[in-house]
């Protein structure tokens, strides 16, 4: 049997990126919510809910980036060059966000500063990811395999919209996670915060989806052409249904909020994949053009097949160990 390694790897990287978006999404969401939560003790609790798992969550970003480098080196090189400024801005923001987990508890005098660093780092990292998503959908100027665009090509009204969409989306994921992990009055406050976020996210999703079909006629064709429109219609329709359900869940449910938000993220992600496939550097370069040699892909696949289930196993175990409501505990 001949394996389509290129296809397998593009799907694996897509899975890694989605794992990153959802897992680090709620970590980042907690930082995005910080400005709305004033009490230091509650902020500490919020951080405690993710302190044991954020390292693992962040690792999916390295797998996504590293996997792209290994499996599609040309795409990696082009995208990193085109997104030079947002990539570095995101990385520096993640530096602040990452160390804040340790530093916040080490210092009483400067706790406010580290709270600010954590929050600003989370917001900026999320916004940069959204802006890159927007720039990615809009396409990258490539000629003869070289990036020929400018340093600010990624910045446009559309990418700014995508940036806000991601920030709000992450905030909602974070709220869903916290509603699950917190109790009492504080949980009530979080529910109040979530309501406007749901409306904002719904509006954002509508605008971004419609704008996407205007960015490139090929995208519109893919969605609106018959018979595609019939096959693909369930994606937006189910998303609308989930948003409606989410609106009601936010008011009274404890665990479903997070689950529904994940569902919405998943559908958006699938829709995004359908729009762009098979391009890995839109609008021209497909994943097949950019792929690494077959034997590299095959060699890595052995590792991925053996190790990914193990990774998922112990990651699930770590989450299970820290299941349930989070109190004020830490090791500090």
């Amino acid at each position, binding site marked *: 049997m001949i394996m389509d390694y290129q296809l397998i790897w593009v799907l694996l990287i897509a899975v890694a990126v989605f794992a990153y978006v959802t897992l680090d999404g709620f970590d980042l969401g907690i930082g995005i919510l910080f400005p709305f939560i004033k009490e230091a003790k509650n902020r500490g609790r919020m951080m405690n809910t993710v302190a044991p798992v954020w390292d693992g969550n962040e690792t999916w970003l390295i797998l996504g980036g590293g996997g792209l480098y290994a499996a599609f080196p040309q795409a990696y090189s082009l995208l990193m060059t085109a997104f030079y400024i947002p990539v570095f801005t995101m990385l520096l923001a993640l530096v602040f966000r990452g160390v804040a987990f340790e530093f916040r508890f*080490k210092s009483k005098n400067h706790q406010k500063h580290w709270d600010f660093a954590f929050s600003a780092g989370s917001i900026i990292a999320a916004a940069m990811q959204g802006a890159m998503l927007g720039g990615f959908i809009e396409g990258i100027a490539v000629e003869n395999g070289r990036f020929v665009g400018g340093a600010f090509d990624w910045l446009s009204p559309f990418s700014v919209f995508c940036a806000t969409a991601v920030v709000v989306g992450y905030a909602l994921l974070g709220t869903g996670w916290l509603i699950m992990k917190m109790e009492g009055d504080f949980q009530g406050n979080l529910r109040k915060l979530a309501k406007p976020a749901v409306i904002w996210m719904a509006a954002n999703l509508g605008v971004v989806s419609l704008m996407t079909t205007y960015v490139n006629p090929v995208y519109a064709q893919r969605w609106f052409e018959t018979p595609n429109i019939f096959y693909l219609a369930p994606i937006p329709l189910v998303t609308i249904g989930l948003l409606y359900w989410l609106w009601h869940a936010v008011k009274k449910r404890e665990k479903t909020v997070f689950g529904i938000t994940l569902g919405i993220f998943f559908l958006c992600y699938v829709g995004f994949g359908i729009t762009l496939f098979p391009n890995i550097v839109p609008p021209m370069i497909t994943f097949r053009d950019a792929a690494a040699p077959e034997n590299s892909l095959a060699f890595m696949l052995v590792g991925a097949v053996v190790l990914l289930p193990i990774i998922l196993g112990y990651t699930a175990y770590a989450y299970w160990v820290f299941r349930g409501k989070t109190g004020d*505990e830490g090791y500090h």
Partner: protein
Amino acid sequence: MLDAELLARIQFAFTVSFHIIFPSFTIGLASFLFVLEALWLRTKDETYLSLYKFWMKIFALAFGMGVVSGIVMSYQFGTNWGPFSEFTGGVIGPLLAYEVLSAFFLEAGFLGIMLFGLNRVGPKLHFTATTMVAIGTLFSAFWILSANSWMQTPDGYVIENGRAVVSSWIDAIFNPSFPYRLVHMVLAAYLTTALVVGAVGAWHLMRDRENRAARIMFSMAMWMAAILGPIQIFAGDLHGLNTLEHQPAKVAAMEGHFETREGASLILFGMPDMEEEETKYAVEIPKLGSMILTHEWDGKITGLKDFAPEDRPNAPIVFWTFRIMVGLGVLMALLGIASVIARVRKKLYSCGYLHRFALLMGPSGFVAILAGWFTTEVGRQPWVVYGLMRTSEAGSPVAPTAIAGSLIAFVVVYAIVFGVGTAYILRAMVKDPRSAHVPDETEILRAGGRQSTAAHPPVAGE
């Protein structure tokens, strides 16, 4: 105006220099924590648990900083070194992917349990988590050193359509310099950690010579220095011979030899001058250079003049960083020997000179690692992949201003973040290790190892 290539090199050197500090510390510290917890579980001696908790806090800080600076590195390949990424993607990409899959996830996945889980999973499972984190750090070293060694001594590849394609994974992973580099680096990491632990032990002994936790740290660290110091010198010598075989230009620069000679002298100090092609003010010992490198008094050593000027690495940097590394290595071995003498005379915990010496040597491992890293990386120049790709061909088509801007941002951000982080680490180090342990927690553990979160006293934000 500085050009893009030089700026990208400075940026890479800057970020890698910061990054390398943390993994080389956490590799050793993870193994140390493994030993401490094993000793605690075996002997039930609470002092080991105190020490475990003391060093765990420092580990968490260093690990966090290692993670964030490492993420930066993994993206820099694409941003600043696009053509390099395309050329090597098929070889180095999979090695790094294996690092993420086999090492990074293992460390990150179990770190949470290691830091926060003692009350939740009980001592045995917690020990498993510590073990996994320690193994993860070593796997990580394995893959990173393999990738780096391939850039130094590429093997097991063919060039197809202007890209490196692997023909044998065994040859590519276990390329000629890899075993030497891996051993030299892991020993360096262990030695570095031992020197830090020894310095912290010495600091506390200088305050209270009866401090049992400090005595244990100091004694364990001094054993490590005494054993690993000489082994490291031996391993370094083997690594040098390997470099002579595969990268003779680097060795010529390390030695400061411009002329090819039989029976070459050992230049102790001097000023290599690339323009004049000679090492000025050289203090040398006749014939010893050949003896050390070839193990023959009249062995032939190739000088830099045998290489075309555009193929020569920067001799002054390589020459001096190499001397800093070797000099510190000798001092480390001396510390080890001094500690053995003090131990035999039963003065290990009372000899003030030894404690002061150990305290001074505390940061020396980091300096030696950085110096050694510069020796090997600058010595590889002008090649980014030795003999295959020049550094000048490896850079992305990015405007110098973009690289300069991100470099300045890195300098500012790293200065703040790592400056503060180091301050927190030092502050954690000077706390009395005996106070790191809250006794009632072990009583809970003995009672069954589990505890509801509600009953736990609030300690966050301490």
